[in-house]
């Protein structure tokens, strides 16, 4: 089942989706496969493997740090692709790649789409590629069944909603607030209004990310969308000096708590 179908399926059943972001190669390359498996055991529905970049413009301190550390560990896009095929062979949940455009261009856009197809990547998330640029890449990716995920943010002009919806072959990544990634204690109340307007105007499944730090906030955001994305808060569970097993246990526990918080909402939480 492709990503879009499975997300629409969940949407129809009002099952909230949990997507977890993990910087590949953080804190070491050896840790990536065990950590991804721990995330899956915790109950995540999707895993976004972060491809590290030297200049992560849309990211806060936690993901910046994890990216630089992963680069020092020797993490490269080809390596992340190999890891993905290892993971897709063992895990039943979709693996997405998330990363900035430049390393992908350096690898070659067409080559990347082919490799992604071959290695079983479900979709690509590129935070510095808006729907307006690289039309060929958007189209080609859609044709090859490796959809690119468009973003929508609280500052997005309403007239862009329809265009973004059309581009969304898998789901729409709804940025909760203006700003960079990173856990916030709580998100402002206007987020709910914005998410309501968004989900009324966009047919594609909508996953909310940026700033979700704990089960309460996860539940609050999930109420107004089809699912949520956690990244920085998850990475913060990892102790760079700690052992792999210990880190895996902490990550699994964290994912389970978040999953539990958003599962309580289904199917009664939503009554549209």
């Amino acid at each position: 089942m492709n990503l879009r179908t499975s997300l629409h399926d969940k949407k129809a059943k009002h099952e909230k989706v949990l997507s977890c972001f993990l910087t590949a190669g953080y804190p070491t390359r050896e840790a990536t496969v065990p950590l991804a498996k721990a995330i899956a055991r915790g109950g995540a529905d999707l895993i976004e493997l972060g491809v590290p970049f030297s200049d992560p413009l849309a990211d806060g301190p936690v993901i910046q740090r994890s990216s630089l550390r992963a680069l020092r560990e020797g993490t490269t896009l080809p390596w992340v692709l190999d890891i993905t095929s290892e993971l897709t062979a063992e895990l039943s949940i979709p693996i997405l790649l998330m990363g900035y455009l430049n390393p992908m261009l350096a690898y070659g856009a067409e080559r990347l789409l082919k490799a992604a197809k071959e290695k079983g990547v479900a979709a690509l998330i590129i935070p510095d590629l808006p729907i307006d640029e690289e039309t060929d890449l958007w189209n080609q990716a859609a044709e090859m069944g490796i959809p690119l995920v468009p973003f929508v943010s609280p500052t997005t002009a309403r007239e862009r909603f329809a265009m973004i919806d059309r581009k969304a072959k898998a789901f729409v990544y709804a940025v909760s607030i203006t700003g960079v990634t990173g856990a916030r204690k709580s998100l402002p109340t206007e987020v709910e209004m914005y998410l309501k307007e968004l989900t009324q105007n966009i047919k594609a499944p909508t996953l909310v990310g940026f700033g979700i730090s704990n089960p309460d906030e996860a539940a609050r955001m999930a109420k107004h969308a089809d699912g949520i994305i956690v990244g920085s808060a998850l990475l913060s569970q990892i102790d760079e000096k700690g052992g792999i097993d210990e880190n895996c246990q902490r990550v699994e526990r964290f994912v389970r708590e978040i999953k539990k918080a958003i599962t309580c909402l289904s199917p009664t939480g939503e009554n549209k």
Partner: protein
Amino acid sequence: MSVVTTNNNSRHQPDRRGHFGPYGGRYVPETLMSALNDLDVAFRTAWRDRIFRQKLNEELANFAGRPTPLYAVENLSEELGYPVFLKREDLLHTGAHKINNALGQALLAQRLSKKRIVAETGAGQHGVAVATVCARFGLEAVVYMGVKDMERQAPNVSRMKLLGAEVIPVENGTQTLKDATSQAIRDWVTNVRTTFYLLGSVVGPHPYPMMVRQFQRVIGEETRRELRRREINASVLIACVGGGSNAIGFFYPFLQDDMQLYGVEAAGEGIATEHHAATLSAGRPGVLHGSYSYLLQNDDGQVSEAHSVSAGLDYPGVGPEHSFLRDTGRVRYVSVTDEEALQAARNLCRYEGILPALEPAHALGYLRYLDKKEIGDGAVVVCLSGRGDKDLQAFIEG
């Protein structure tokens, strides 16, 4: 001023979405897209508005001190064997061409009712210009600066603070202009509703490369007018290129003319080493800070660390219009090492009584490589984009 009607492609760049050939564009998070659209509309409207232009021209004349002289350096000319003129942007208020753009964008910020200004700075010249215009117009100034640059350009840090700006040290990554720019953009993404990003060069997402060029083209327009008035036949123009704002402003009105244009990048310790900032000479196209342009990067697409004695040129990217002009061959991009630039600066100081900044010292450093046949019986004009007070330490130590 003459109206150029020649049908040359470079005259019609960028397209509506900010592309200079394949370069430029808007590679930014979705959150910034509407702010960039608003800025584009505001700039285009303001640029056509007679009252806005009049106000800007008054500020440029009375606050910044335009026009700047076109000055013949006689001793240097005699030594080189051909006439050399300097476009004296170093004589502007705050000591560099950066004030031209800062004034323009501050007036735009006012039009957009944005009271908080964020900016990045490398050498501190743009930061000082921003702090100055914010003091002048009663705006809040927040300037991001790498800690390495704060050390080597300490006088400018003090100036910014005295002018009331908040200077935020950037300790990430290279601790220079690249990471200061990333931090400024992150601030802007977070506070986009209340904050105006006053970008200092012809880099970043559309409309910045086009807008900053328009605010800087006064350099070239004055030069052109003055050359005509004094009946000077110039055959070669030289400017330094980091992000490239003084060079574009200087070259732009001459793109249709039969004149050789040289953009001089920083070769640092040598272009064959890993320690340089010669993006157009040694980089490959890629995406950094919102636009597609030449970039110093490794095979994996990770951005390389630039190196230059000049903090203002110490940047691994370059403006997209320069990338376009490189590919079309209209401008020739060359490079000069730290040592050559330092020597050229010392010479200008010792024999002409003018202390240039390290950035335009690179343009001066290229003079001795010029081919006399190319100059013919014409003159060479160098854009002296800033003065060297901030660099005293480097001149004395180096």
